[in-house]
């Protein structure tokens, strides 16, 4: 016996040890439940972290655009023309009104970290016989690269954009049979055209983006798109990415621009995460309940099996409180033990699945996040569940009539 261990703990541990098979079964049951929760939670957290990291290094967190042009109904005198069809006007590429002023306002906001005015529009990339529709983004690399980490995505060449340079996606380069150093003829709808040299090829992580997106210097895009001195969007990054939507709404309310946050643009993702979290919570609750009932059942049987022991302990002066604690501790220990094994199992499954399940290109499906807080939380929760589940059987043990227990 451990000298520093109080009677209740000694008895609880001995009783669990003696009921080896029961203890083993219930601990395995709890462990499996905990393992499922740990595995699911960690994988979900990993996928989420992966996505957010991706978004944060390849998209602005808030984008300011010129407000939509609105169609006004035809009027004759004070009355609307009967049966007139109000058609949304085709959206021309418009510059944001007074954008340098807005840029300065943005720079003055403490919540905003990077401000990058950009120009984007459609064009045609032609090389020899081949031509492809592209989106050109004109920007100032010094600030823009802080928002979209193009240099990180370079697979060939370098992320350099002087006035005659262009960075293209891997798909486009393949479609046009072009590589670094080759020249492209870029023709805009305004029938302006420029010959640009490919300085870098990037992999943006999606086939669509890789076949459409191209990046040029701000002035180059302005002249191609016939928007000299103008910008179509102002891209922002902010301090607190989760406050982006509120901030976007504030901006939109005070400045005549349309402000879209990454949260709004990726609403689908958040809906999915939310649904997943709800499912996750439900699973946790039900696993918790079945763990609780399992522990309660095992302890209830144990109280009956041990009624003679309890009777004799009471006869030798053990108080009801002490008996109560012996069984509460057993419940807590079962929960704790189960969660320790369960966490180990869950972590092992994560490591295995992380190595086994790969994306098509061989990169990891989700980052391996073994968050200590998750393990601590599941241990604490399982222990508390165990103690709570033990309450009824422990009360029963404490209230056992020693006379009956000994005679029986």
């Amino acid at each position, binding site marked *: 016996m451990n000298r520093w261990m109080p009677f209740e703990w*000694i008895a609880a541990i001995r009783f669990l040890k003696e009921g080896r098979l029961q203890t083993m079964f219930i601990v395995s049951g709890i462990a499996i439940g905990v393992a499922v929760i740990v595995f699911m939670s960690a994988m979900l957290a990993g996928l989420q972290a992966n996505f957010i990291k991706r978004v944060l290094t390849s998209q602005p967190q808030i984008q300011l655009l010129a407000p939509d042009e609105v169609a006004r109904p035809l009027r004759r005198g004070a009355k609307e023309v009967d049966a007139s069809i109000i058609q949304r006007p085709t959206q021309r590429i418009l510059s944001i009104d007074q954008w340098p002023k807005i840029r300065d306002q943005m720079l003055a906001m403490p919540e905003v970290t990077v401000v990058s005015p950009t120009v984007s529009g459609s064009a045609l990339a032609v090389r020899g016989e081949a031509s492809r529709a592209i989106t050109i983004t004109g920007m100032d690399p010094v600030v823009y690269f802080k928002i979209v980490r193009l240099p990180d995505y370079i697979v060939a060449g370098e992320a350099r954009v002087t006035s005659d340079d262009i960075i293209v996606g891997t798909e486009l380069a393949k479609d046009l049979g072009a590589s670094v150093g080759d020249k492209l003829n870029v023709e805009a709808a305004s029938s302006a055209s420029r010959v640009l040299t490919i300085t870098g090829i990037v992999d943006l992580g999606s086939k669509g983006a890789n076949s459409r997106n191209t990046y040029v210097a701000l002035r180059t895009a302005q002249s191609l798109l016939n928007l000299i001195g103008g910008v179509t969007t102002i891209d922002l990054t902010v301090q607190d990415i989760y406050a982006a939507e509120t901030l976007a709404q504030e901006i939109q309310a005070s400045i005549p621009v349309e402000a879209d946050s990454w949260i709004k643009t990726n609403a689908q993702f958040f809906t999915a995460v939310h649904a997943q979290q709800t499912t996750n919570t439900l699973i946790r609750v039900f696993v918790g309940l079945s763990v609780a009932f399992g522990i309660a059942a095992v302890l209830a049987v144990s109280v009956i099996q041990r009624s003679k022991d309890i009777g004799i*302990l009471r006869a*030798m002066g053990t108080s009801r409180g002490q008996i109560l604690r012996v069984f509460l501790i057993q419940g807590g220990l079962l929960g704790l033990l189960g969660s320790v094994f369960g966490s180990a199992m869950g972590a092992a499954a994560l490591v295995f699945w992380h190595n086994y399940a790969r994306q098509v290109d061989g990169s990891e499906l989700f980052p391996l996040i073994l968050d200590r807080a998750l393990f601590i939380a599941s241990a604490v929760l399982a222990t508390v569940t165990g103690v709570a589940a033990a309450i009824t059987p422990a009360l029963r043990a404490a209230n056992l009539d020693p006379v009956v227990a000994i005679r029986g």
Partner: protein
Amino acid sequence: MAEEILALDKVCKAYNVGTLVETEVLHDIDLVMRRSEFLALMGPSGSGKSTLLNIIGLLDRPTSGHLYINGQDTSALGESELTRLRSHSIGFVFQYHYLISAFTALENVMMPMLVDQGFPTPAVEGRAANLMEQVGLTSVINNLALNMSGGQQQRVAVARALAMNPDLVLADEPTGNLDTKSADGVFELLRQVNQQNGTTFLIVTHNMDLARRCDRIIELVDGRIHAAGKA
């Protein structure tokens, strides 16, 4: 004259009180035990011996009447006070030894002290080892409770009953489940403890030979003390 360790005053015990099958099994029991007495309680099966022992041992309460231990009236005591008094003043030995199987022989002997003090201190372990020696069981000290013969288990139970150095040891047919030789040995052990330590014993037995070797015999018949006196 030796002091009174135990006194019963008109103790009655009824079961199923207030129901149709209410039965009184003990009627107006008066009994006094003096310190160091070694008393045999006899009587036919169902006469109420175990019921009486449980009441004296504070495991059960009388329906009416008073029970004094060391002059203290126990009827006014609450649950936790009774538990405490039981822990410090009374030791039990039961027919079926009832050691706790999850513990070794030595640990079983330590148990009453452990329960009382909360921790298995070296003093507790030392006293338990001494008791094991006193009952002649040094060799099986670390055996699990069930890995011993019936006689050995009952000796451990005796050592355990003595652990808190109680004033009174209550033994309910301590030898009833043993062969003659072991029974004799255990009885001798009790007698020896009684003589050496001056511990008071109340022993329920069906064995007339053993009863004759006690200081006094009380006979219980149908819940009444039938005859009392020196054997």
